[in-house]
């Protein structure tokens, strides 16, 4: 849920050799340290997930104690529901475009910061790199709800700063342009807010990865006559590949979720449902309509889509 895109350090350590009989203290420690967290985790996370799969095959209404197994009826109903399919198409669109946009931008900014300096002597970053890095991370510390609110206010047709600036710059056609109320601009606007919020985090992540590359490699490439662009494409990119993959998967999971941003900017699905996402449908089905079984089936579909997305990323890489 914190979903930061990072792999933990994988450090091999020699296995413990001793095979003495464990003492009383070791046994109690083992029990307490393992059983307590695991019990909580299974109760709160694992068991509900397993239940969700089971309930997805029932007509459970949430408040009645009984429910009947209805087989695949929920799934058939969901997949023939034009509104849900519209939401699914929106999510798939987001899952295709959001990760690539964020990663390309983050990599470009990270490259500028790390190797934008002099091409003589050691590979240098830009002066003031620290400043850019700190600023770039700002949006990540802002709750998505708050970012959504800020942009709703900033893009207000009449009192928002965006139209104010555009009008000042001479684009008078934007005087009262409803960025969030127009079917053509709604989705790109939402994507902009997400990109704004997340690029900085991935930029900082990639900066760290690029700094981890031994500088000899850059120097060798430079001596061989590689230019900046060539170095970025042929040296940097392959060497941060694993980080890019992790980032891709986390962003994919996020794009298939999207609840916060969609709900904050477009609580009712946006103009002509152009920004409606599956998670909004799921919560409405469960807590407004009270169709818990149906909502669980939606959750399973979202889980499968996430798995499919991860599989595609692994296959392509």
């Amino acid at each position, binding site marked *: 849920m914190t979903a930061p895109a990072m792999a933990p350090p994988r450090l091999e350590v020699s296995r413990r050799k001793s*095979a003495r009989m464990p003492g009383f203290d070791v046994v109690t420690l083992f029990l307490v340290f*393992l059983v307590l967290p695991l019990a909580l985790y299974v109760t709160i*996370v694992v068991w509900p997930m397993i239940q969700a799969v089971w309930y997805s095959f029932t007509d459970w209404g949430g408040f009645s104690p009984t429910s009947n197994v209805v087989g695949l009826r929920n799934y058939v109903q969901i997949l023939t529901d034009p509104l849900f399919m519209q939401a699914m198409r929106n999510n798939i669109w987001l899952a295709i475009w959001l990760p690539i946009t964020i990663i390309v931008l983050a990599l470009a900014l990270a490259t500028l910061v790390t190797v934008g300096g002099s091409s003589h002597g050691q590979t240098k970053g830009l002066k003031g790199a620290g400043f850019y890095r*700190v600023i770039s991370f700002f949006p990540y510390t802002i709750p*998505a709800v*708050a970012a959504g609110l800020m942009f709703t206010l900033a893009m207000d047709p009449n009192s928002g700063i965006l139209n104010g600036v555009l009008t000042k710059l001479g684009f008078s056609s934007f005087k009262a342009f409803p960025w969030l109320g127009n079917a053509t601009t709604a989705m790109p606007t939402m994507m902009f807010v997400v990109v704004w919020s997340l690029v900085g985090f991935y930029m900082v992540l990639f900066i760290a990865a690029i700094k981890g590359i031994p500088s000899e490699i850059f120097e060798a490439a430079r001596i061989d006559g590689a230019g900046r662009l060539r170095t970025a494409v042929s040296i940097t990119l392959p060497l941060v590949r694993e980080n890019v993959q992790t980032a891709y998967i986390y962003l994919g999971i996020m794009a298939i979720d999207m609840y916060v941003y969609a709900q904050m900017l477009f*609580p009712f699905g946006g103009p002509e449902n152009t920004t409606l996402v599956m998670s909004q449908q799921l919560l409405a089905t469960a807590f407004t309509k009270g169709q818990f079984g149906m909502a669980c089936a939606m959750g399973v579909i979202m*889980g499968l889509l996430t798995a499919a997305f991860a599989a595609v990323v692994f296959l392509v890489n």
Partner: protein
Amino acid sequence: MSTSTDTLRTSRRTQLSSGDRTVTITAHAVLVVWAILVIFPLLWTLMTSFKTNSEIFSSPFSLPSTPALENYVYAWNEAGIGMFFFNTVIVVGFALFFVMLLGAMCAYVLARFDMPDSRVGHAVMRGIYYLMLGGLMIPVFLAIVPLFKQLQIMGILNTLFGLTITYIGFALPFTVFFLYAFFRALPDEIGEAAQIDGANAWVTFFRIYLPMAKPGLATVAIMNFLGLWNQFLLPVALNTNRDNYVLSQGLAAFTVSAGYDVNFGAQFAAFVITVFPVLIVYVIFQRQLQGSVSAGTLK
């Protein structure tokens, strides 16, 4: 922005070739545009939060005539942001403490007692580790509806306690996953020395290994803090009693419920109240945080 123009000037040294200079200037230009894109909306929101409603409607550029604090008063009291703020502090505070404790305990046992000599034992330990890992990949949405019922059965639905427990559960996989690597990297010899000196397993953990993992604990704690402070979906589904709202939830409800009786100024103020504490914490701890992100890229 003065810092960046200063650095621009000083970086133009004689040894730079003209091509280099072009690249450097372009890089700065792009980054300055990006920095403005980040900072400008924040500053505008901060400024507008001091304007009255009529000032807000008259022009997005105008400065507040007198820095009005009534927006803050309204947001804090009338809109309940103050109450939501305290709820959030309580829930996030307890959840953070316990997820760090339980996560460190679990990660420690998984990393340092993985029973390499017993096939069954080893398989069980790996199994638990992968069970934790799985929780990182599966969307929360899959669990949300049955979890609602689970908490209802346990009698803690719509309570701050229930929300805290849920936060701990969902933050646990990330915590364990990350700390596992830290505990695995610590040397065995120190623990062995402590045992020879008569320390039992509990003392070894709390007095030796836990303090040694401090850098790891700090970074994971910061990431968890951001994640939990910003959490929205779990409280929206599981914490629907208005008195128990957390900040993100209250902010959303306030914005939606404002409806026709729009108090724009208070929305700006609510934004500032929500965002700036975290932003200040970030600026103070940013070195640590940058370190944590880099730690994640060690191969």
